[in-house]
């Protein structure tokens, strides 16, 4: 396959940045999207042009490091991570536009790499269960209903990639937030901090500059782990209960 790539290049946070056009040839449909970019980078290096900086690590679709808006869609046309998107999803001769995640709190570091440390700060604000090491009760002493545990697991699969934010017209991180609130809120161990958690995490979310949720649903359709939209309902319900009870 021969492709035309239109890629956002930005040398640093203070550079204006812009789209550059590159040609790549000999791309196999079995390559992942990132392997295609590896080919481009090897080519650029040979020509003496600095390779395109992009984030990736596990390349197995689980670490959440890879990002990229591909033709205006977070992680591209399939419901998966960019590292698991394969070139068989494109056609010979295609022009592909590649940009970094777009959201106010995700500032560009270089080229296609953005700063997602706001997610860590949201977790720091309450996205945990306070269980000191060594003092845990016997694991089976607190049974967890199977359906609740399943629901907790299904939403705990969030990889924190930020696609939900990049896809949201309001730049809201409500899906990310809702997934964590639901994960911990479904389990018996998560109950003691349930309501303070939601208040603190929503506060931090807003403080970071993420937008409010207006139920557009782009987040859930862009989520590579298919976190369902109803985690946002659960988030809102917990928040309402918390407010009502004066948390």
């Amino acid at each position: 396959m021969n492709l035309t790539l239109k890629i956002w290049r930005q040398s640093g946070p203070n550079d204006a940045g812009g789209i550059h056009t590159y040609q790549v040839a000999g791309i196999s449909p079995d390559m992942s999207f990132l392997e295609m970019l590896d080919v481009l980078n090897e080519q650029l290096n040979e020509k003496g042009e600095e390779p395109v900086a992009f984030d990736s690590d596990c390349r197995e679709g689980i670490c959440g490091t890879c990002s990229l808006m591909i033709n205006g869609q977070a992680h591209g046309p399939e419901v998966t991570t960019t590292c698991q998107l394969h070139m068989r999803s494109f056609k010979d001769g295609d022009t592909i536009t590649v940009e970094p995640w777009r959201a106010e709190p995700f500032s560009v570091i270089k080229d296609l790499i953005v700063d997602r440390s706001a997610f860590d700060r949201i977790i720091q604000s309450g996205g945990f269960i306070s269980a000191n090491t060594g003092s845990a009760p016997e694991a089976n002493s607190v049974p967890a209903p199977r359906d609740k545990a399943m629901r907790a697991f299904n939403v705990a699969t969030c990889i924190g990639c930020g696609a939900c934010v990049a896809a949201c017209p309001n730049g809201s991180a409500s899906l990310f937030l809702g997934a964590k609130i639901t994960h911990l809120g479904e389990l018996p161990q998560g109950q003691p901090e349930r309501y303070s958690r939601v208040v603190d995490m929503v506060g931090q979310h807003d403080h970071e500059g993420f937008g409010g949720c207006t139920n557009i649903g782009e987040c859930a359709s862009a989520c590579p782990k298919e976190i369902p939209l109803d985690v946002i309902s659960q988030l809102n319900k917990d928040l309402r209960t918390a407010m009502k009870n004066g948390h």
Partner: protein
Amino acid sequence: MAGSTLHDGTTPLNTAPSQTSDDAHGYYTAGEPIVDPVAPTGPIKDRWTNRKFENRLVNPANRRKLDIIIVGTGLAGGAAAATLGEAGYNVKSFCYQDSPRRAHSIAAQGGINAAKNYKEDGDSTFRLFYDTVKGGDYRSRESNVYRLAEVSANIIDQCVAQGVPFAREYGGLLDNRSFGGVQVSRTFYARGQTGQQLLIGAYQAMERQVAAGTVEQFTRHEMLELILVDGKARGIIARDMVTGEIETHLADVVVLATGGYGNVFFLSTNAMGSNVTAAWRAHRKGAYMANPCYTQIHPTCIPVSGDHQSKLTLMSESLRNDGRIWVPKKKEDCTKDPREIPEEDRDYYLERIYPSFGNLVPRDIASRAAKYMCDEGRGVGPMVGDFRRGVYLDFSDAINRLGEDAVREKYDNLFDMYERITGENPYQVPMRIYPAVHYVMGGLWVDYHLQSNIPGLFVSGEANFSDHGANRLGASALMQGLADGYFVLPNTIRDYLADGPFEKIDESHEAVVEARKNVEERIEKFLSINGTRSADSYHKELGHIMWEYCGMERTEEGLRKAIDMIRELKADFWTNLKVLGSADTLNQSLEKAGRVADFIELGELMCIDALNRRESCGGHFRGESQTDDGEALRHDDEFAYVAAWEWGGDSLEGGQPVLHKEDLIYTAIEMKQRSYK
């Protein structure tokens, strides 16, 4: 020695090894033997309990005056940061990723072992200990392994309390499954994403401490040098990968929890960024590297599809519980649709050769058997080189027996992942798998306290060598990472810190200045060579050499050839590398150059270690050492030792590594030839 009694009342069950072969003659220098200076004694079941009590305490008021650096935020590093922070020490945590939550522990799929015996199927601490030592082909330390088995049950308690959503039965209690190499169900799991869930648990516990102010988090930072003052580890030099700034961080203790070095093979199941640099920099400062040649090749990986491939993807070993592995009996069937090959023309070779373990034989055996089938010309899938490199992992029996829904519930994400990568639907067509480099059992040498031979430098998780011997059992990596991080290090580091407060040093100390200068000069060197080849191209070439000659099967001749090739590659690297861009910005080419330089030196040492060990054990299979029917043949009389290598200078300048041997003496388990037949 066998039969006599040691001073603590235990009886050694084997004699000390005495190596007579010397295949690596001329490649190394013999050093003094070493022993673990803090090895516990007495009945094995009491050793850790007693040690926990003997280890000295640090009072809470003094803890906040003590600084701990932890490099790496996977299960071993994240759990340690969380626990030590909670105890009140000042912890600085470093990772090269943009968030600690991305450490590669997250990609572990199958599960975590624990001797809970919830199934009443005969499991116990001793059995987990026994299985681990046996699975590791009697090349691990028995005291360390027993401790690992002992604390395994606490790990599950801890993780459940943190909200890790393990699989549960209808009554709300925890579910288990069984895993390769064992006959009990002791593996706890969260569908095929156990590593992710455990890591998120450790990460959240650590972030809680960040909020509490006990842990300071440095992301996108890479450790490039270890600072030694008066022979003790006192800090690191790190590069801020965003600004390029070279930073000095000082502390009273340094912990390396930096994972494994499987990426020396270029293609592996490791993350793209997994590297050996932190460990290798410590090695060059005097830390011993133990058993570097022990590489675990995982049997259930998605086969390579072509030259462009940047990494390999594992399919969890748990699949072997329900999947049956086979190849066609006849070579001419290899290109046929597998569904059209009748039952009588299929060779379920693991069930045939190893009837009592069948598809659940340990990883090294399953991997090698697959290789032999493909070498024989009975492999399936596309031609890669001269062979078809794949065998079938077939779920049709399981789907018939349990129904597709039940299979989906157990493995759906794995099946989806397979389909995404290969474009084939594994519910309809058998999966194809082939072995790939997955985990390294070698790593920095540590004592029972997980302290390296450099005082104040502790090493945990995959980065150390101690618990898995020559081969790791499935679902034991997660167990070791968390055991080290939550339960072992917090106790043993405390004992070390009880000697504090240590003399304060500052950035003007000559050792610090020197370390900084080395880092700066090295970076300057990479940027100034200005040759023609990218760091990636060297990495790929190194990987080919390693896989070909130091992969699933090694021979004396091949290893000698590999060492020559690596030395040539190294000379070329330092004269013909091309790194564009500058040092004062995010520069991924520069990052890779430093890692590849270290991988090249490590690769050379791995080959020397493999050449010296003229026996087959676990993940190390020497062609010259096999039984009549082709199974691995150990030589306990010669090689029941840990090979701890000291840096002896650059080979291009005539340097040679120095070999220190630590004899492995068992008192609780008798060494036996492994048999899974």
